[in-house]
């Protein structure tokens, strides 16, 4: 398909066909109390009919702002300050509001990022699709109703006719995203802007939806402008790539070429930080073996890896530090009236974690992986089974015993914005666990805070700053520092890097690996992202619907997955088998 695309493009260039979309020197600014902040600073991009182009960049790079300015969807304080957006030769930035309403939906469709918040909760699905069809004059009256059903069927909702009267909250995330894709394509537009259309979804659902989107846009002859932070996805889905950084385009061209041979230093960093199935476990400098360069080079290193694995197995103590045996957790969900329904969130799960190693729990949302974390942390009680920590049964610990356990097992959670108290400065945040467990004098605690900040590579002045002044990656470092304050043996990392951009994610993973060697930490790493697992974990447990379906060493799971479900998960990783240039 990519060869075909290359041919089409060549044809376009040679035929001197007018590009479908041409953005020239675009500048966008946001009015804030501190003056105008420019978000996009001179962006150029060109998209020909039938092509797919991806804009890649981390959050804050201006990729979404660029996309939104095309059909004037900018927030109220945002404004195009310079440049042109030529669509079929017409400059959209100079169109009056009524004319741009005509372009929206009919000529340029839009698929937003978050399916949970992009459908109006108070109108039925049918109403919201039909509205788009009528507004763009695709069909009216009875015909519009029939067309609505067709659009939803095309988007992959086979029982569309029966579900027209249902409301968004009665649909799953994947289904809602299908509805939004249906809306975006309902008028068969010439261009579809898809702003991270699948980043809120599980990998397997993501794959289905992207496949479907590709089929539809090919059938309709619609060009696609993808906005994504996921390099693998861009490599797999788009022929053309534009890399943005701090409001500017740093590199553009055919995506395979760019990713295989990045020119700009930023793209190089981005590519080398992108976790993929081809990556290997990060080794900390101290721990690294002499043959590590070989491993990094990605050559044939199976033998060395096997040898290393064998070594590790021999060195490991026989008794697991954390041992989970036949643990089951049942929730009672209140139904109407007094009835309640039972939900088996965790079903007969057993695994062990050796001291100093990392075990990853992987699964899609609803697989029970986070519940297992809560059970181990003693934030929820188990229904049956046994959890042992360092040879001691921890289920039902109370009072001083529980506090002692908590000192040794600390959590780090997903959302670095929600887990730090905005009213507490960083120093107080890190010192809080020490205070809660009455460790040391005030002076000693302050010294410990400085030591911890140093360990997570943050300057000591950070202790006077507030979470609001820090970036996502910095906050997650603070969260790690807080978790380490009590010198625990185990960190339970629940999606601890999932909210971070790829470069920052790489930094935090490196930090975690270094800390592990330095402090002999044991990690339980909960994630939905298999590519990250490969970078950090020694062992993997794959969970599906509350059960562990496969448990083995990381290399085994990735190189030789036994269960069909694991194979599906691996196959669904975007750009999974694409070799990034390194």
């Amino acid at each position: 398909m990519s060869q075909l695309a290359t041919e089409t493009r060549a044809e376009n260039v040679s035929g001197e066909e007018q590009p479908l979309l041409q953005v020239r020197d675009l500048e966008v600014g946001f009015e804030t109390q501190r003056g105008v902040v420019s978000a996009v600073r001179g962006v150029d991009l060109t998209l020909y009919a039938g092509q797919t182009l991806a804009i890649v960049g981390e959050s804050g790079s201006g990729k979404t702002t660029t996309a939104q300015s095309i059909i004037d969807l900018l927030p109220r304080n945002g404004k195009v300050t310079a440049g042109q957006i030529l669509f079929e030769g017409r400059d959209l930035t100079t169109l009056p509001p009524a004319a741009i309403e005509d372009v929206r939906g009919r000529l340029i469709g839009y698929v937003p990022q978050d399916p949970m918040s992009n459908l109006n909760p108070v109108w039925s699905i049918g109403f919201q699709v039909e509205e788009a069809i009528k507004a763009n004059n695709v069909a009216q009256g009875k015909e519009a109703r029939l067309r609505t059903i067709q659009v939803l069927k095309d988007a992959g909702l086979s029982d569309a006719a029966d579900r027209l009267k249902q409301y968004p909250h009665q649909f799953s995330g994947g289904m809602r995203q299908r509805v939004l894709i249906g809306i975006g394509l309902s008028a068969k537009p010439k261009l579809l802007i898809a702003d991270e259309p699948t980043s809120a979804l599980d990998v397997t659902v993501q794959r289905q939806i992207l496949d479907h989107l590709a089929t539809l846009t090919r059938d309709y002859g619609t060009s696609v402008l993808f906005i994504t932070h996921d390099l693998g996805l861009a490599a797999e889905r788009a022929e053309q790539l534009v890399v943005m950084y701090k409001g500017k385009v740093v590199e553009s061209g055919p995506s395979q070429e760019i990713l295989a041979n990045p020119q700009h230093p930023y793209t190089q960093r981005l590519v080398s930080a992108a976790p993929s199935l081809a990556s290997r476990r990060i080794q900390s400098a101290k721990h690294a073996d002499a043959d590590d360069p070989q491993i990094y080079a990605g050559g044939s290193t199976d033998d060395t890896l096997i040898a290393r694995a064998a070594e590790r197995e021999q060195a490991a103590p026989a008794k697991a530090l954390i041992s989970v045996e036949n643990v089951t957790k049942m929730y009672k969900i209140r139904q109407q009236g007094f009835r309640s329904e039972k939900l088996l969130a965790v079903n007969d799960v057993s695994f062990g974690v050796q001291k100093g190693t990392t075990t990853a729990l992987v699964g899609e949302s609803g697989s029970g992986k986070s519940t297992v974390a809560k059970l181990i942390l003693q934030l929820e009680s188990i229904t049956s089974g046994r959890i042992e920590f360092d040879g001691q049964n921890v289920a039902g610990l109370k009072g001083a015993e529980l506090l002692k356990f908590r000192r040794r097992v600390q959590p780090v959670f997903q959302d670095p914005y929600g887990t730090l108290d905005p009213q507490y400065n960083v120093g107080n945040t890190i010192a809080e666990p020490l205070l809660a467990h009455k460790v040391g004098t005030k002076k000693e605690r302050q010294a410990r805070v400085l030591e911890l900040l140093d360990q997570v590579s943050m300057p000591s002045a950070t202790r006077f700053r507030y979470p609001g002044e820090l970036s996502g990656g910095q906050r997650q470092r603070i969260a790690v520092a807080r978790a380490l304050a009590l010198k625990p043996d185990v960190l339970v990392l629940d999606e601890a890097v999932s909210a971070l951009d790829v470069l920052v994610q790489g930094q935090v993973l490196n930090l975690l690996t270094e800390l592990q060697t330095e402090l002999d930490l044991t990690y339980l790493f909960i994630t939905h992202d298999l590519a990250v697992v490969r970078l950090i974990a020694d062992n993997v447990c794959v969970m599906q619907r509350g059960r562990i379906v496969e448990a083995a060493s990381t290399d085994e799971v990735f190189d030789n997955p036994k269960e069909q479900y694991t194979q599906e998960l691996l196959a669904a990783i975007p750009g999974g088998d694409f070799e990034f240039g390194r």
Partner: protein
Amino acid sequence: MLWYTGKRLLQTIPVFFGATFLIYFMVFSLPGDPIAALFGDHPPAPAVIDQIRAEYNLDKPFIVQYFLYVGGLLTGDLGTTFSGRPVIDVMVKAFPITFRLAMLALAFEAIAGILVGLISGLRKGKWFDSSALVVSLLLISVPTFVIGFVFQLVFGIQLGWARTTVSGDAPWGELVLPAIVLATTSFAYIVRLTRASVADNLNADFVRTATAKGLSRRRVVTVHVLRNSLVPVVTFLGVDVGSLMVGAIVTEGIFNINGVGGTLYRAINLGEGPTVVSFVAVMVIIFMLANLLVDLLYAALDPRIRYAK
């Protein structure tokens, strides 16, 4: 939904008895002798007093009085006032007037409040919004009776648009000015509530998506912003039905309306147990029905709220 409505209606029964009991108790505990107060400086013969006491059951213990009252209630007899009129007659005369007043006020505050709030929310930070905020703050801080007198002076006397007092049977037309006075405070709250809600919803993702679909600005605002913004406003309106009934006491005083307010005020002063309790009981029922209506409206506005069968 039907089952839910039925359940809610059944719930009014215990609340009704609880409320009447408490109010009866409070009236009973009021200091002073209602009969003595009735005759002022010229007390009648003790035999006459005893006879009146017996007639109104005032010689019996509190609990017996209450049950006699409730017994009468269930047979349709709400008792009589001290002047000998059946309480039911007084109610039939007073309630429709206050009800008309409250409904007019409610209509005014809902329509004008939502309209001004919507425009304010859409033009956040512009001059219309700023003036609406200042005016609403002013209306919230000035007491109703001041606004009442100012309105009487300006619209009643200087401009001559409306009568300063309302005639005995209080026709709709004459109630417009008092209703606006009664509604001012709530109007200001609704403006602020709607404004905040609209401004909030304007930034919602689904509004941006609606715009991206190619809908006109007018449709985006009416279909996707307004309906979502009405949920908190409707809640406020429901609770406000009660406050309007109560607030009517002041407004009725200013405009000399023979509604619930005045009658209740006199009955409390006289210690007329049956009259006070009957009036308040009806108000309790109105309040509960209004709240039920709000909850049902809530479900109609927001399909995520579906009540258990």
